[in-house]
């Protein structure tokens, strides 16, 4: 059981970087970005190829750059070609499927394990001499903490503030001297870079990449963000990023628990995630509905 907890903690934190990337577009820029499914896989495919060639650290850096490029393509379609935000994400995601297949040389999945390639986790384990699980957890924690800290700091800088303002009041930003198209591009690049890093880490962690791995990833990311906000509320960006990590980990635990008690078959996972997101997004509507209902009941009782 403790092994399961450790495993869920590890994957939860890896996925936290994906959710943090989605947080940048979905919450900070206020645009739902479907590129994520493509850029997550892009991070995985790039990493699997370069890691098998023997460069696991470089693989992650290239994955970050590749993810940023994918985000830039979506932002370009949105700001310059004026395609609707959701559609531009779908277009990039769809196109990335072919790109990802090409990167893997036409194979739908590749294993690092069978190739016997070193990953950063194997290297770190050798370096620290810790047990496999502990060294994995330590390395993941360090990377996630560093990335989240960087994101938090970045969004307090002048450029970061401009990106946040763009998502908050675009009209104001456009009538001031800020180039809103540029800030959107930056936001999309940063968001998808974080997503691709998450994909790259997961690839090295499980030593395996599959072309269809990221199907439904956006909903998982949204569920993580929303669960995090259930704990912390929607407040500043700093708390937002921290809550995303908590939410992502909590999401893994919830799913693992449900699977442990055999509540449902694993293939129902995506359905459950979708339901979580629907419930969370419908809360404001439900709230006003119930408020009206209670007010009416109270009135009726008062009149009786």
């Amino acid at each position, binding site marked *: 059981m403790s092994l399961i907890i450790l495993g869920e903690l590890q994957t939860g934190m890896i996925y936290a970087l994906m959710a943090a990337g989605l947080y940048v577009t979905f919450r900070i820029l206020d645009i739902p970005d479907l590129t994520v499914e493509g850029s997550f896989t892009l991070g995985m495919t790039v990493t699997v190829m370069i890691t098998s060639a023997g460069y696991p650290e470089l693989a992650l850096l290239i994955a970050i750059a590749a993810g940023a490029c994918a985000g830039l393509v979506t932002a370009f379609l949105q700001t310059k070609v004026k395609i609707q935000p959701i559609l531009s994400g779908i277009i990039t995601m769809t196109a990335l499927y072919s790109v990802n297949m090409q990167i893997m040389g036409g194979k739908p999945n590749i294993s690092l394990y069978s190739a016997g390639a070193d990953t950063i986790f194997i290297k770190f384990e050798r370096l620290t001499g810790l047990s496999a699980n502990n060294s994995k957890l330590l390395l993941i924690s360090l990377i996630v903490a560093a990335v989240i800290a960087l994101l938090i700091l970045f969004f*307090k*800088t002048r450029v970061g*503030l*401009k990106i*946040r*303002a763009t998502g908050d009041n675009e009209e*104001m*930003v456009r009538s001031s*001297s800020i180039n809103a198209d540029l800030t959107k591009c930056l936001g999309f690049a940063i968001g998808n870079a974080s997503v691709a890093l998450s994909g790259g880490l997961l690839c090295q962690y499980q030593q395996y990449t599959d072309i269809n791995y990221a199907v439904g990833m956006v909903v998982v990311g949204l569920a993580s963000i929303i669960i995090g906000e259930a704990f912390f509320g929607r407040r500043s960006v700093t708390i937002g990023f921290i809550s995303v990590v908590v939410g992502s980990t909590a999401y893994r635990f919830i799913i693992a628990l449900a699977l442990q008690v055999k509540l449902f078959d694993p293939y129902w996972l995506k359905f459950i995630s979708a339901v979580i997101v629907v419930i969370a997004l419908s809360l404001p509507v439900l709230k006003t509905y119930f408020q009206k209902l209670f007010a009416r009941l109270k009135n009726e009782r008062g009149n009786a």
Partner: protein
Amino acid sequence: MSAAMLELINVSKTFFPGTVNERKALRNVSLSLKSGDFVTVIGSNGAGKTSLFNAICGTFFVDSGKILLGGKDITDMPDYKRAVSIGRLFQDPMKGTAPHLTIEENLALAYGNRGGRHFFAVNRKNRAKFIEMLAALELGLENRMTTQIGLLSGGQRQAVALLMATISEPKLLLLDEHTAALDPATAKKVLEITVSIVEKTKTPTLMITHDIRAALEVGTRTIMMDEGRIILDIEGEERKNMTIEKLLQLYSKESKKQLLNDRMLFEIEKQ
């Protein structure tokens, strides 16, 4: 005479030319503002007041004529580049501020690099300046620097928006009925703040208002627009001797048309 800060030379703009909806928004408008000019702009709805502002800001490009700001020809410059040197405030307090950013973050956004290069947008140095500026408003906002702007009242938001529009020391300030959406007491307060800021900074200012009394009392000069033209431009003695009644008379003589829309009538009846 000091050099003109803003100069419009024969500016014209027609919307939907050649169609049944053709509308001449600006007709040969020429206007010159020098440092310290605080011009109130009046005119009925559709007279071209906001079109004048939009032309200056580059919301649209004009059909003919030239616009110069600080001696530089900005006629063909895109709007976001002009925005560096133009501060603009709208009627809707929601337009000028980012609701989920804090007061200090909003101010830092407008302040930009002027406090020197720092890693963080909000830092010790510019925070001190923000506190000083907010304290001058006498609204108690200096104690609420980390409050999200969305939680403030309309008047407080507009006061912060006014600071944001002037903090970057623009070459020109455009106020588009910025007190019209506020309750009378708050509107008065925001107008007072406006006057004190403009007088202190000497920023050339254009202020659209529907309050004719304020138009004559506030500022140094008044222009009246009708059908895309400036039909009256008074300052100094002439303006001092002007009364609301005379203004209305003059208006009907100049354009032979009813000046009053419902809101102006309401304002006058109140007085």
